[in-house]
């Protein structure tokens, strides 16, 4: 028999994992909505940022905060660099060209990283603290910090999207690129803001992952499918949907552990995704695309 406390613990695990996935999922869905393609290098932006934090800690003996700032800079710089070198020149080609190019970017970034950093595992050094125990409900301070930072980053992105002129312009481009251009919105600035935001989200995700788990060259690539699933479930291009879907998938996954065991929990999350898409092909919060 599964106790309520046990279920609550599983739910906490699901929530934290969901919030962690929400960061790359939001990056993915923003790029999809505004630049119009699925960026397969999203995960590798995370990996590079995580390694940047490790390098800051190891080589410069930087504090955790400084290392995180370095990772943020690395994530934003990488995203902008790829935009200038690869995605902007391809902007007028069909979206699939950019998608394929992003797979190439992902492979290249990972190979270069592996060449310099090797296959050995790395970790971001953080103080280990014992869990707070509320009558059997165990909350790890690390998990709370991870969840707190993730929520903060998500809120910051939503504040930017909804409370600033550039955010409004980004949403306008996502909504209707032609109308946006006709209204005098400068696409160049919007794209810079988009990629800076996408890079920052990936960097935050990468550092949080590094704090919670271990850092390997495949870290981000392994998370990509989960982030992609969340984007689809939330309705492609819908930022709020992506975040909510990440949390729902995380909860479904962890709460299924007492029923099916950890080997099949991932399958349960994807079965849930499949069922929702069968009933609602546009995802939970997607708007139906009009036939052209």
């Amino acid at each position, binding site marked *: 028999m599964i106790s309520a406390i*046990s279920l609550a613990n*599983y739910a906490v695990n699901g929530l934290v994992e969901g919030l962690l996935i929400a960061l790359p999922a939001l990056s993915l869905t923003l790029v999809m909505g505004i630049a119009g393609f699925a960026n397969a290098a999203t995960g590798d932006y995370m990996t590079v940022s995580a390694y940047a934090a490790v390098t800051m800690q190891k080589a410069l003996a930087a504090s955790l905060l400084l290392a995180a700032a370095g990772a943020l800079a690395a994530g934003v710089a990488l995203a902008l660099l790829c935009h200038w070198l690869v995605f902007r020149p391809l902007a007028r080609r069909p979206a699939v060209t950019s998608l394929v190019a992003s797979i190439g970017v992902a492979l290249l970034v990972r190979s270069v990283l592996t060449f310099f950093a090797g296959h050995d*595992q790395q*970790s971001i050094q953080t103080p280990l603290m014992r869990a707070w125990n509320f009558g059997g409900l165990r909350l790890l301070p690390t998990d709370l910090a991870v969840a707190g930072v993730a929520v903060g980053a998500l809120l910051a992105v939503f504040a930017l999207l909804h409370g600033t002129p550039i955010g409004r312009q980004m949403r306008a481009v996502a909504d209707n690129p032609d109308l946006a251009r006709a209204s005098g919105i400068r696409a160049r600035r919007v794209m810079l803001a988009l990629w800076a935001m996408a890079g920052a989200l990936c960097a935050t995700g990468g550092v949080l992952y590094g704090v919670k*788990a271990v850092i390997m060259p495949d870290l981000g690539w392994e998370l990509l499918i989960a982030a992609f699933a969340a984007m689809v479930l939330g309705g492609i291009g819908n930022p709020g949907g992506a975040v909510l879907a990440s949390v729902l998938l995380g909860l479904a996954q962890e709460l299924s552990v007492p029923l099916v065991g*950890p080997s099949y929990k991932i399958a349960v999350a994807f079965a849930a995704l499949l069922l929702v898409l069968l009933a609602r092909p546009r995802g939970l919060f997607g708007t139906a695309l009009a036939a052209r």
Partner: protein
Amino acid sequence: MTRIDETRRSVCLAGAALLGSALAPAAARAAQQDVFRIGALNSITGSGASYGPGMQKTILRAVSEINAAGGAGGRRLQVYAEDDQTKPEAAVLAAKKLLDVNRVQAILGTFSSGVTLAVMPLTNAAGAILMNTSGAPAITTQNVAGLSWRFEATNDRYGRAFAQAVAQGGFQRPAIMAFNNASGISNTQGFKTAWEARGGKVVASVVYEPNRPSYRSELQQILDAKPDVVVMGSYLPDTTLILREWYQSGQDVKWVMPGWAGNADLVKALGAEVCEGVRVVQTIANEGSPALAHFDEIYKAETGKDGSTSIYAAMCYDMVVTLALAMEAAGPGATTAQVNACIPKVAGGQGKPVDSFEAGREALKQGPVSYQGASSRLNFDASGDASPDFSISMIRGGEIVRQGRVSV
């Protein structure tokens, strides 16, 4: 070919070659019969590259020692060295070349289980001997031709050593956590079988997926059963994550894990406090044996490193000595099958214990011998699996401290 002196030299060479070929056939045929060809198929590149080069150098050195001692069974050994890249596909190509072009009668030194399993059908079809250092249980079941000899402990034996470690720790309620692959699962299943044979019971069992950002739910499932010890069939990255989350959750349980997970890198990643009291089980060399002392000497000469850094090179040394003794036992002109049939007679645990090829060659005149190797006492069982000893260690203050040695 414009310069005169070169033309003259090539004429001379051609003349010598003609003369040679006129005299050679009989001698060449005799020489061919006097050579036993072996392939050294090692992981020079790829993920096994930290061991492969030392293994290959050891094989070459051991072979030259046998030849310097006058060869085995009236024959000289000749080695053809290849790189398997730690990849089954590359290994198959290299093995085909060794078997078809070089016509080797034995392949020595395959390291990864995937490589050994890929090469085995080829050696079986060619009737060649295969000596490996791999752990997967499937190698035993696929060894239908009886031509494969495993110098590493099987995962089943690891399981029995885990059971010893748990019993010695005085634990009553073990649980198991396994990484979802053949090695992880068969190590822990081996433990379960051995533990239940002792009348014990496993209170919980979890198989987990690789590359997860967290293993808290998996841990929770295990800890809900209130075990006093968790036996791990795991690797380094997942173990790092699991122990960190366990330590933070503050629940009281002890850990038993294989040496490739519980090592200095684990302590480096987590710190001494988290790792305190972790029990580590791993295979060890045949400590105190003259064969190990000699291997250590030649390994240092070949690589500049201590012999203790590569148990797999010690196994390769034993492969060459075992094969040479079997050739000696089979006698001059024996077929590969006859040599293969003699391996249990020289390293099967029955007979007079010997420590080297020369000592074995002398003792074989009286009857069967039991070569006591550098890597283990060998004692091949009916399935062709050797029986290395294990050490049980405990991590104390960040150091891995040997507690004892067990034979299973």
